[in-house]
């Protein structure tokens, strides 16, 4: 067990290292940082002095480790377009994105899992067919179009919910403004959270359904039935637990990608999160922000994956006993 976990942590570190390398290469070699920082009238001498000051003339390896060392201390350099530290820019927008992602993840899990279990067990019921048809429409509508439809319906036509922004926010920590504590903040998060979570919800539902169908065909389920176990116990004790390992894997991946998909939702609803910041960075070739965003999403992703690995160990006894019988 210890071996499994430590191998996984090592793997996570390797992933982070590779991402840091990519992000450094971006930072250092795509576009000339000096060109981005100074005006046209700067003399070559001034440029050279700047290069020297930024350490751009040092060996690449030194620069790389300086970059990593900076990143560990949340120093990602300055944004080209805003001329401000990237860490501040991202930090100010991070709470909005995290709250949105959290709300939509909860939405996706709370609806997706029960719907998946239901459709997996009641393959031919009419409700399953409804769920499946709706889910197919769900994965066929692009997120941004769902957002547009929601705005058109609930904001423009019915005028129930706001179409942009976070509503009123309350500061609960130096870097954290929350929208969860005000009525307008809660109202504002409904549409974006559903828009963002809908796609993940359908994927989770379809995945659980497929796994359920798979497990229901295994020998040990057949044997459980032959022992006379009632459906309730066959389904929820033996089948559900056995579907969990693949389901957790994919769910982990999906939750990780919510942060990235937030870019779209934030654009549609003009949600002041770091997704919009990243999009602007892409459009304006603001490399430091892109590089930092890359590192941050990778980090969140790696953490989620580590949690997934820990859950494996909890669920699967075969991983708990150190090298079981060959």
């Amino acid at each position: 067990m210890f071996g499994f976990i430590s191998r996984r942590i090592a793997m996570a570190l390797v992933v982070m290292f590779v991402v840091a390398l990519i992000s450094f290469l971006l930072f250092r070699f795509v576009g000339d940082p000096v060109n981005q920082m100074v005006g046209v009238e700067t003399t070559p001498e001034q440029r050279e002095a700047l290069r020297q000051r930024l350490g751009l003339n040092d060996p690449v390896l030194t620069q790389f480790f300086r970059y990593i060392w900076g990143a560990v201390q949340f120093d990602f350099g300055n944004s080209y377009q805003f001329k401000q530290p990237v860490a501040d820019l991202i930090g100010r927008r991070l709470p909005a994105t995290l709250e949105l992602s959290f709300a939509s993840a909860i939405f996706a899990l709370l609806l997706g899992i029960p719907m998946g279990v239901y459709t997996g067990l009641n393959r031919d019921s009419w409700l399953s067919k409804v769920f499946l048809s709706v889910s197919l429409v769900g994965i066929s509508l692009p997120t941004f179009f769902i957002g547009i439809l929601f705005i058109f319906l609930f904001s423009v036509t019915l005028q129930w919910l706001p179409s942009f922004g976070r509503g009123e926010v309350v500061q609960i920590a130096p870097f954290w403004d929350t929208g969860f504590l005000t009525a307008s903040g809660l109202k504002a998060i409904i549409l974006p959270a559903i828009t963002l979570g809908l796609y993940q919800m359908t994927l989770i539902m379809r995945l659980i359904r497929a796994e359920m169908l798979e497990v229901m065909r295994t020998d040990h389920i057949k044997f459980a039935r032959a022992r006379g176990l009632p459906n309730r116990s066959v389904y929820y004790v033996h089948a559900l637990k056995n579907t969990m390992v693949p389901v957790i894997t994919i769910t982990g991946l999906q939750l990780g990608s919510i942060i990235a998909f937030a870019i779209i939702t934030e654009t549609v609803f003009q949600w002041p999160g770091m997704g919009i910041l990243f999009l602007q960075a892409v459009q304006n070739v603001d490399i430091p922000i892109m590089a930092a965003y890359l590192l941050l999403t990778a980090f969140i992703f790696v953490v989620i994956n580590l949690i997934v690995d820990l859950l494996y160990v909890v669920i699967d006894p075969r991983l708990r006993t150190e090298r079981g019988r060959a």
Partner: protein
Amino acid sequence: MSILDIRGLTVQFPSRKDVFTASRNVNLSVDAGKILGVVGESGAGKSTVGNATIGLLEHPGRIAEGEIHLDGQRIDNLDPESMRKLRGKRIGMIFQDPLTSLDPLQTIEFQLIETIRLHLPLSKEEARARAVDLLNQVGIPNPEERISQYPHQFSGGMRQRVVIALALCADPEVVIADEPTTALDVSIQAQILKLMKRLCEEKNVAMVVITHDMGVIADLTDHVAVMYRGDLVEYGESRQVLGAPKHPYTQSLIAAVPRPDVKVHRFPQVDYIEGSAKPFKQIDISTHWLGKARDYKPVDGPLLSVKDITMKFLTKDSWFPKNREYFTALDKVGFDIYAGETFGLVGESGSGKSTVARVITGLYHPAGGTAHFAGQELTSLKDKKQVLAMRRQMQMIFQDPFSSLNSRMRVRDIVAEPIKFHKLASTNSEVNQIVDDLLEHVGLGVAAAAKFPHEFSGGQRQRISIARALATRPRFLVCDEPTSALDVSIQAQILNLLKDLQDELGLTMLFISHDLAVIRQMCNRIGVMRHGQLLEVSETEELFDTPKHAYTKELLSLMPSMEGLSRSNLEEELA
């Protein structure tokens, strides 16, 4: 009065095109404390009878006609809920594969207590005590300690014991066992059969054992029902049916069982099975491509000489060589095979016998040792031309007829591939002629060439495999369990074909099997393997008469006794 009574059972599987009748008008009954064997080859409908009895027919199967009575009560028309309550409580079931029958994520304790408390009004503590007691009865050592373990911590045989304990949780009146020992090694198989027999007597349960194995029937059952293509062809006391079979199918089936006690020249043909009696078109080997230009130089001494072959598999990888862990599959194995003989390797699963085949044919690279074929060292061959020349002389026939042929290729392309690859024929029409002849020669006919493998049965596919192996004009044939996936009647045909080919072409063979009876019929000399070691090598008759190694003796003692089997056909054959 019989506990389980099946009357006129007909089970059908409707499909889009037609209705498939899996069992037709089957009548069976079992008494308490007795064991009924249901025997038949694949497609006989024997599992269907078992599944219908316990109410777990696979979709879209249904009981079309007939009645099933349990202790006088009709059960085939019960509603699903009453049927469920019956399962496990009054009828227990044991499945074939113990490795997949248990929920891998729950402890043995959980699964036992869950089942016990479902059927019996016991408290948790009482149920646990009963569970420990059950494990004790089925022969699990330290049940108190082992009960809290997970299935993966038990070996295959031990898991099957747990499965049996689970089936006996509520003291059922009837236990149905569907191929209970098929997935197990012979030594484990013998133990499980003994256990089942003991439990049947002790607990006075009626047992139905579904199997393809005549040995199991002979060892275990009181009565036997023989099924063929959904029909019950013969039914009676085991001794009587095995000793003096009445139905021609039973007769030929019993005749086809390889006898461990006598050596026959050829297996009796099972003529009852349709499609088997196809006369082969004989080709004149001396003038044909297959026989012509077999320009192999005769060798002095052994054709194949294996010395100290060692093979290790990585079980735990690491970037640091010293942290890597290995499993030793072969430990200094050495033997000689002389031109024209058939050398047998016998052993249980994991003994390394198949690994030997794969090292010799170049599929694995050994960690140490040498193998000389016709004087040339095999394991260090580097030159591409030499490697190919060696490959051409040595071909292999595999175990699983369903995976040994590429399902996306036509039979013609499968058989032609080696000919074309080794450039053994100059024109396409010549290649086609050779393929046609080969297919004729292995008893398939020319029409087979245009078809895909899935259009053939297991035995026919194995013939295609043989044709492909012959297509390089080899002089050495490695047969790795060539018939263990086949029905016994088909097995007899394939073994006869191999013997014929060997006689005609003067092939040298390495024949690998777990089945001592088959080995005895096929081989001149035999090597016995266990845990990657070659324990002894003897002449066949010597091995069976005076085995040297203790393990060989044990293996021989475990062979199902076939004494009760009819010898009528056999004697005809010997006469």
